[in-house]
């Protein structure tokens, strides 16, 4: 039986290092190629040796698909393609293709230049890797080869994020990547049609969370920023350059405008400024409202938000600063944090998830004394706030997506095992479909039962559809044809055509049965009685009395002759072909019972 096999190399019951192998109808596809922020050793990348022990990845994989530009979905790509070696196609959307190399370069710089690692991918490798990328449009059907096609759907989450449908024949898998089912300030909601895949592979970061309304969180955020600024404090918001940064900038920009606030807002230069350019140029990927009004007012041209210079950090008075990176593990955000941490008037707002080991994670878990480089102890007096602005679907959203796509099976990745377990039960209860949650390296096999498409000759189909013009549910019409299987083509034709095509002659098998009837009357009277009898019994059939004295029932012929010896007995010759076997057999047994003693 045809089957689909799924093996997560990363993101199996885990967040980070997303990398999922799918085998469908003889095609092998790798979904995402991410890195893990929690590791600095071999475990940061997926174990590609799992794919093939000996032999080239290019020979084994038909294509690689990257869902969006976050490093836990694309961070291992140059390693995979240039160091392990893969030359096949890599698919991603245009914005992802634009932004992905910049984040990879940034990641490389931090790893090699700051941490001094060697044996890491180089800038040239990133460039060479990106040359293998084929950009796809939303909803475009990309023919990877003759059989394998993929199609991208809008996923929200970040600029250019997409869900992908992978299809071979009538079997299909949908991979969601990370998605968001509610529109936010700059992106729209994920959307998919009722494509009824055999399998839906969904992220499940917020598998157990039903989030409160976004408005509440936004109000909360603005209130905290406002209060801090009002009392003369400084607000630090560590962000990653692309994604939440833009959403929070829009939020603050409109708030400042409305409240007529004067305190400066800065974002750290470099990436974020560049990022805003991407948002401007890829505005068709943002939400309806921004797209509609961008000519009058481009939401990514900020009036109140200005570029940051490191000297500003020592300026007196209130200010708000967006700085990278988002987990306070290095760079400008950490520098500013060290400067401001000692003052209880200040505040740091962490708008997203922080991986263990980072300063962000430490202060969020309540640590107030941090050991910095050189054994220096940093005492944190500033206020620490956590506010989730990650754009992942919550439990409600995941259920909603399942309802939209109507998959036959669901498989959960990109989440924590305990939470997945809960969601899995919920999905199985509500949708009565199987739900899987394999760990890394564990293979899930799903059996599909595809129907087989064949070519039917129009003659045969028309014959059948015209016969059954008025479809009767109770008495379905049987259709009879011959399936010709030649090479890989399947054609259903009428038996006559099949014989003709194969150059075979039909062999006619005919039966003629002698039925003896006791009837002293003249032959033609006997015939008339037979005719009336049959006519009475076989109401649904065409019974005809021909001028030459014979009777036909459909194509069965009945003739009467006198018995050569016994004048009181008539012999009925009933003649039919094998195709009318059933009716012919029925007629002989009917006639054998004799004619009813009619008074006529």
């Amino acid at each position: 039986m045809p089957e689909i096999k799924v093996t997560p190399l990363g993101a199996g019951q885990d967040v980070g290092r997303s990398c999922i192998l799918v085998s469908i109808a003889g095609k092998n596809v790798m979904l995402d190629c991410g890195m893990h922020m929690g590791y600095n050793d071999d475990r940061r990348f997926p174990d590609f040796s799992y794919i093939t022990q000996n032999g080239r990845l290019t020979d084994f994989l038909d294509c690689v698909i990257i869902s969006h530009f976050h490093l836990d979905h694309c961070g291992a790509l140059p390693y995979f393609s240039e160091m392990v070696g893969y030359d096949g196609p890599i698919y991603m959307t245009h914005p992802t293709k634009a932004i992905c190399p910049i984040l990879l370069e940034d990641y490389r710089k931090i790893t090699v230049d700051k941490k001094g690692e060697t044996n890491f991918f180089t800038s040239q490798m990133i460039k060479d890797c990106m040359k293998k990328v084929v950009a796809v449009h939303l909803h475009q059907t990309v023919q990877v080869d003759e059989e394998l096609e993929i199609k991208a759907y809008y996923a929200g989450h970040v600029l250019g994020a997409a869900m992908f449908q992978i299809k071979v024949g009538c079997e299909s898998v949908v991979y969601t990547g990370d998605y968001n089912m509610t529109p936010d300030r700059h992106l729209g909601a994920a959307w998919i049609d009722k494509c009824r895949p055999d399998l839906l592979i969904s992220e499940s970061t917020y598998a157990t969370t039903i989030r409160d309304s976004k408005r509440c969180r936004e109000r909360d955020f603005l209130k905290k920023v406002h209060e801090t600024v009002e009392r003369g404090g400084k607000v630090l918001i560590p962000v990653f350059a692309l994604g939440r940064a833009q959403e929070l900038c829009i939020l603050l920009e409109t708030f400042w405008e409305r409240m007529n606030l004067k305190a400066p807002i800065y974002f750290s230069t470099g990436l974020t400024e560049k990022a805003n350019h991407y948002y401007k140029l890829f505005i068709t990927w943002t939400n309806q409202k921004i797209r509609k009004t961008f000519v009058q007012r481009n939401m990514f041209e900020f009036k109140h938000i200005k570029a940051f210079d490191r000297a500003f950090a020592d300026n007196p008075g209130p200010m708000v600063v967006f700085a990278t990176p988002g987990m306070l593990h290095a760079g400008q955000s950490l520098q500013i944090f060290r400067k401001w941490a000692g003052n209880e008037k200040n505040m740091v707002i962490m708008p997203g998830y922080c991986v263990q080991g980072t300063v962000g994670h430490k202060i969020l878990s309540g640590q107030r004394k941090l050991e910095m480089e050189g054994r220096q102890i940093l005492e944190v007096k500033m206020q620490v706030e956590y506010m989730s602005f990650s754009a992942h679907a919550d439990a409600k959203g995941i259920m909603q997506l399942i309802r939209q796509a109507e998959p036959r099976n669901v498989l959960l990745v990109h989440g924590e095992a305990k939470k997945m377990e809960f969601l899995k039960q919920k999905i199985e209860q509500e949708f009565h479909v199987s739900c899987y949650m394999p760990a890394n390296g564990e293979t899930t096999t799903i059996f599909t039962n595809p129907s087989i498409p064949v070519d039917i000759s129009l003659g045969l189909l028309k014959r059948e559809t015209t016969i059954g013009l008025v479809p009767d549910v109770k008495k379905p019409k049987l259709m009879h044809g011959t399936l010709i299987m030649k090479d890989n083509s399947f054609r259903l034709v009428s038996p006559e055509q099949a014989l003709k095509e194969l150059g075979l002659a039909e062999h006619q098998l005919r039966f003629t049965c002698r039925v003896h009837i006791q009837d002293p009357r003249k032959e033609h009277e006997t015939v008339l009685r037979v005719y009336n009898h049959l006519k009475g019994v076989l109401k649904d059939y065409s019974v005809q009395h021909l001028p030459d004295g014979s009777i036909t029932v459909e194509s069965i012929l009945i003739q009467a002759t006198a018995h050569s010896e016994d004048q009181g007995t008539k012999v009925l010759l009933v003649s039919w072909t094998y195709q009318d076997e059933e009716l012919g057999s029925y007629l002989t047994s009917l006639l054998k019972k004799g004619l009813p003693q009619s008074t006529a």
Partner: protein
Amino acid sequence: LKLYCLSGHPTLPCNVLKFKSTTIMLDCGLDMTSTLNFLPLPLVQSPRLSKLPGWVLKDGSTFLDKELKECSGHVFVDSVPEFCLPETELLDLSTVDVILISNYHCMMALPYITEYTGFTGTVYATEPTVQIGRLLMEELVNSIERVPKAQSASMWKNKEVQRLLPTPLKDAVEVSMWRKCYTMPEVNAALSKIQLVGYSQKIELFGAVQVTPLSSGYALGSSNWIIQSHYEKVSYVSGSSLLTTHPQPMDQASLKNSDVLILTGLTQIPTANPDGMVGEFCSNLAMTVRNGGNVLVPCYPSGVIYDLLECLYQYIDSAGLSNVPFYFISPVANSSLEFSQIFAEWLCHNKQTKVYLPEPPFPHAELIQTNKLKHYPSIHGDFSNDFKQPCVVFTGHPSLRFGDVVHFMELWGKSSLNTVIFTEPDFSYLDALAPYQPLAMKCVYCPIDTRLNFIQVSKLLKEVQPLHVVCPEQYTQPPPTQSHRTDLMVDCQPPPMSYRRAEVLTLPYKRRYEKIEIMPDLADSLVPLEIKPGISLATVSAVLHTKDNKHVLQLPPKPPQPPASKKRKRVSDDVPECKPLKPLLSGSIPVDQFVQTLEKHGFSDVKVEDTAKGHIVLLQEAETLIQIEEDSTHIICDNDEPLRVKLRDLVLKFLQKF
């Protein structure tokens, strides 16, 4: 497969294709050449135009002098300009299921179709097509509505009257079909019926037909369309270009293996080379400005203007024009310039690469930043303060009948220092200029039409090899003004089928197969037999279900088990329910082996007689006779059903079933 041709204009097509029970309209072009018969609509009161004499018939009657004015020997209708709509009577347009739009120039009649014919279907177009199409419509509506005209002339349209008019009014066709411009609410209503699509997106229509837009290389978001079922493929090629300008290149490969290729929207200026024209444009512009004159470029607010601005961007410094202001005046100028920068995915490779940097794909962003290019919604307001001469003005409409261009024609027409450069190929420039004559200003004609020329067409057709080509009749003969140029026509084998306005063509094609799905449980029950090496057969008896034009074969339902306690049945209860179908038989019966088999099954008195065509096998005791010939077997017996069935099954053993 039928094609209803609603427009006679080869580059502004409107055809309806009936394909497998779906009715598909291909484009919605609006023929605006009719406006050339009207007087221009001046934004500012024009003493010259208002003083034009009324037209007087030869016999001196003056009843038309309010409607028709004379200018330099030409007669114009003094009324709100009107457009020539596609045929609306050839078929009931409310039956149209979908409308496919190929580019923003070919959707200008959309509001007339969607708002006036009872249309309830869906329109499909790409996002750039819709956005820029909206801008073109907005500009059109705006430039006509802002100059309200008190009178609407209709007397001249009377057939009896029209006969008396001078050419070209006398020969104007379908004047009863001419209509005034639509309104913004109608535009919005029409555009709300559009569903956005991307290149290579497969769109299912009623399960019967799949349509797919392909990049056509002509304009931002411009598409050709594939309309196909599993077995037939119609390609609709409309407005395509093989030149490398700003849009994504044309997708030719996907047009292969078409049964029918409908070819419209070829270049209107087959003899002009677009690159040469751009060069001439630049040099004429530079010369005029250097001599202290102004340059007027009548244009659409999107399309070629992007390429012209890009050329000028590279040209102005070297030509010493850095201080000459460029003005782009249109109610949608700003929107057009902004929109052009956000459609990275629809641009050629070079421009896409710029976006990845990230930089704006078109250099006009820099022209605006450096104040070399300024844009204004109209000549009123800011423009009048900033206006400096000599300058270059890009503005619409190319017909010179409405829009801000009318003002500049009136303003600059009297001086021979100034130049008007025609780049848009849609209107004859001499006709466009007629109501401004006599004119001192220089006129330069540099039509830039990047659409396919005939050499490219014949190369394309050789490449994609359609079985049949259908095109407007204009393409099947040389242009009327160059009748000796037999190279300026579509040349292919078999010769193209041509159409003209209001014609209905039956397209040649023969369908022999349809797709059907065999359900897995039915497939499992099939028993394939290898008949010849590599060819297997299986007989299929199944129930056919057809829903939404999709066919599915299922296992026949098992006959319900008769209830255990049998009541006494009437005879008729036994009548076979549905007509059972037995397979066809093939093969022949070897007599010797057959006789052996009979004997093995207990028939001891078998006798064989030879006949002319075969044999007769006699079972004497059973009074049974079996005639065996090459292609037939006839069993003649008494009414002994067990015997007959036994013989039947023995015969069947020797035959193959189909």
